[in-house]
């Protein structure tokens, strides 16, 4: 335990410079590997919900039990994977399934039966409730349509 400061100037042999460089490189690599070994579990831990959500978005079909009883002129909001979606039963009897996420900045849109339109309250975007086409306001793209199959027990909504 008798340590003194090392004040003796280090005299390097010609070959010593290489071993020293090699040592520093190895130490640096070991340090990086160590840091990565610490950081990797932390990253995976924090990324867990995002990963689970990614798995959920891989869903291609959702069955809405008893949704065939939805009265005409009304809407059913549901989750397709993790994203909000809407099933509209129009007054004329047509069934339409759409994503409910505004293509402008991601707010959840609303079906308005009186005005016969889909409206986004955030920035006033308007969509066609039959095709999902962006009609007016800022939305740059239409809402995506789903395939809809109505049966006696429920409604199947699947990716088009």
């Amino acid at each position, binding site marked *: *335990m*008798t*340590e*003194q*400061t090392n004040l003796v100037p280090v005299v390097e042999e010609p070959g010593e410079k290489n071993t020293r460089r090699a040592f520093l490189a190895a130490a640096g690599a070991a340090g990086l590997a160590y840091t990565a070994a610490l950081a990797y*579990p*932390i990253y*995976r*831990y*924090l*990324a*867990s*919900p995002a*990963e689970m959500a990614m798995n959920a978005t891989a869903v291609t079909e959702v069955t809405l039990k008893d949704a065939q009883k939805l009265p005409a002129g009304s809407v059913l909001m549901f989750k397709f994977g993790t994203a909000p979606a809407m099933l509209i039963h129009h007054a004329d009897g047509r069934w339409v399934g759409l994503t409910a996420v505004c293509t402008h900045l991601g707010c959840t849109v609303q079906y308005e039966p009186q005005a016969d339109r889909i409206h986004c309250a955030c920035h006033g975007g308007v969509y066609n409730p039959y095709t999902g086409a962006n009609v007016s306001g800022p939305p740059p793209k239409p809402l995506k349509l789903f395939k809809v199959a109505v049966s006696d027990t429920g409604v199947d909504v699947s990716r088009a």
Partner: protein
Amino acid sequence: MTSKIVYNWIDERLGLSELAAFARHKTVPVHSQSFWYYWGGISLFLFLVQCFTGVLLLVYYRPGAEAYESVRQITFVMHFGWLIRSAHAWSASLMIFSILVHMFSVFFMKAYRKPREFGWLSGMALLGIASVFGFSGYLLPMDELSYFATKVGLEIPAAIPFIGPAIASMLRGGLDVSEFTVQRFFALHVVVLPAIFLPLLGFHLWLVQRHGNAAPPSVEALPPSERKSMPFMPNFLRKDLAMWLIALNILALLASVFPWSLGKQADSLVPAPAGIHPEWYFMSPFEMLKLLGMIKWLQGESGEIVGILLFTLGIALWILIPFYDNKKESGQRARAAHYFGLLAVILLLATTAIGYWTIR
């Protein structure tokens, strides 16, 4: 060049060069007992690990009625959640252990003497808060063990005459350990205790800078020319950091090889599991109270009170040591203090051993 300009700009405003000059002149005594100087730093490092892993657990933990379910998710659903939780639990144990080593080394080096009384007092307060950290954190998973540990632990304040039951009910948030208890222990564990602990820790570390490391009396008796020291920067710091790295490796090994388990969800109708016992750092005080309760004339409720009183008296004597072992010359008092320390170590080890021995 730019870095020089930036440094000067900041230096003029914050006085970095004064700090650098201070760091350059800081030295650490070198003698046969220098090894014990690392334990304060190790405790500090493990506390930082606690802050870091604690915040990570906070990302998914939900106090209240969902507490158990959220810890189950952390342990079994989130990637590496078991490891983060295990590291937090192991690091808590290691931190208490290293604080105890630090405390006893300070005690036997008589580093609590003038001018370091506040260092001793703040250190004792930090240890006290650390054990409350341990006690409150233990409940948060809300499994069988946490439920019964908290139930039993709160019987101690409940034994205080007159006001005890009210204090216990206040801490519990009701007459039994429930989701209200988890919720308030959570507030205590992540807000109240850190808010007290951090400034106190700052004070403790500032005192260490102000007074430097204390050398044991035998070294202090030497003439200055015979005392050895090493510069803090970079020699001691380098060794300090090496110790931190060793501590981190030991922690990583323990946390991954012996992952902290999660018991069944707490249920007041299910009897306590066989072999249930307190965490090792609470084993000794529990065993002491149990042994005191066994003495014939101490039996019954009044025995419990006498036990707590004796115990409190011992702790008070321990905390106040700088005020009655204050003479530089090693006289009778210094020797008495030394024996008191030895007695404390032996009591602690013996009661812990008996505690583990008699687990049924």
